[in-house]
């Protein structure tokens, strides 16, 4: 079987902290990511991004170890103060060395 198990981490957050988030993802071992514009509403509903682009949705496929580290940093630095929501799904990838 050429398919390998990986985790897909999806983060929806405010556009203001995009650069900071992406830097952290790379530093913690994510080898790539996809960013798209998003809009919606969460339980906190407090952003500064109304004027400058609203929310972003970041998707990155990572190994279990990298995932743990990213979640820890999110929990410490992002969840308390920023509009930031996250979920994890099980995915299967080909060319697993890329993730």
């Amino acid at each position, binding site marked *: 079987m050429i398919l390998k198990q990986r985790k897909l981490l999806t983060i929806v957050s*405010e556009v*203001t*902290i995009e650069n*900071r988030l992406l830097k952290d993802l790379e530093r913690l071992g994510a080898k790539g990511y996809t960013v798209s*514009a998003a809009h919606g509403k969460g339980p906190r509903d*407090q*952003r*500064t991004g*109304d*004027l*400058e*682009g609203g929310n972003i949705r970041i998707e990155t496929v990572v190994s279990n170890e990298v995932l743990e580290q990213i979640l820890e940093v999110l929990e410490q630095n992002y969840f*308390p*103060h*920023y509009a930031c929501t996250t979920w994890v799904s099980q995915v299967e990838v080909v060319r697993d060395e890329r993730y």
Partner: protein
Amino acid sequence: MALELAIQNLISPPVLAFALGLLAVLLKSDLRLPEAVYQGLSIYLLLGIGIKGGVALSESTAAEIALPLVGTLAIGLIVPVIAYLLLGGLTKLDGINKGAVAAHYGSTSLVTFTAALVLVESSGYTVEGYVTTLLAVLEIPGIVVGLLLASRALGRSVNWGEAIREVLTGKSILLLAGGLVLGYLTGTSGYERIEPFFGGLFTGVLTLFLLEMGIVAGRRLPDIKKAGFGLVAFGLFFPLISGTLGVAVGHLTGMGVGGAAVLGVLSASASYIAAPAAVRLALPEASPGIYLTASLGITFPFNLIFGIPLLLALSEVIEGMGF
């Protein structure tokens, strides 16, 4: 005279478009400018203001600019401190939120400035060309002072690098400063070739932009109910205090009626683009529901509708007193 100015301001196309935007929100219309159009218009306005300011700057002398420049820097440093102290008296906000709000009121709003230019010039006053330089100068110090004030209440150090980089490399400063240089270098003869686009169309584009701003500000209105009486009072009265200071500094540093009124508007207006981004990065503990509601939901509409004509009238009165 003040009433005349107020009416003239109220029935100007940009202000009416702003009101239409507010109305659209009240009617629960789904009207929005597409994101890309909003971005395009804001780039046009920033660059256009910068270029026109640069052309005018090329005709000013250093001696003429020096005093107003020093005065503007002083405003940028003092206004957030006054804001911080007043907030302490009017509201129960903690130090972090007081500092965050102070950062917004210390910085300035390009759209309010632009609307002021339109009213002042249509009232027959000339505005010193270097006021755009003052706008660029006033954008940053207030944010730094506000963050400094907030950091006293913070149990950690502020990440200055990221916040300052955000302000400096954000499109406002880049386009404004870039436009100033561009206009300065190209001068009057170069500007003539782009005048139909950046001059003739300008008020029309501003009108369209303010329609969107009306919608954005309107969406903040429900938050005002949650803001509390003290913050609303601050959002309405503080611009009169900081605006009076600005007009006075303008006259003291040798600016004319028009220029002093515009400097008044610069000090009276609160930032809602550059400051929120910087504050969000540096002070995540501060609540955007407080600082954005105050600057965008309360002070911005107030200045647009009442503040600008009031400060112009004040500037006329001070001139009449012989300063």
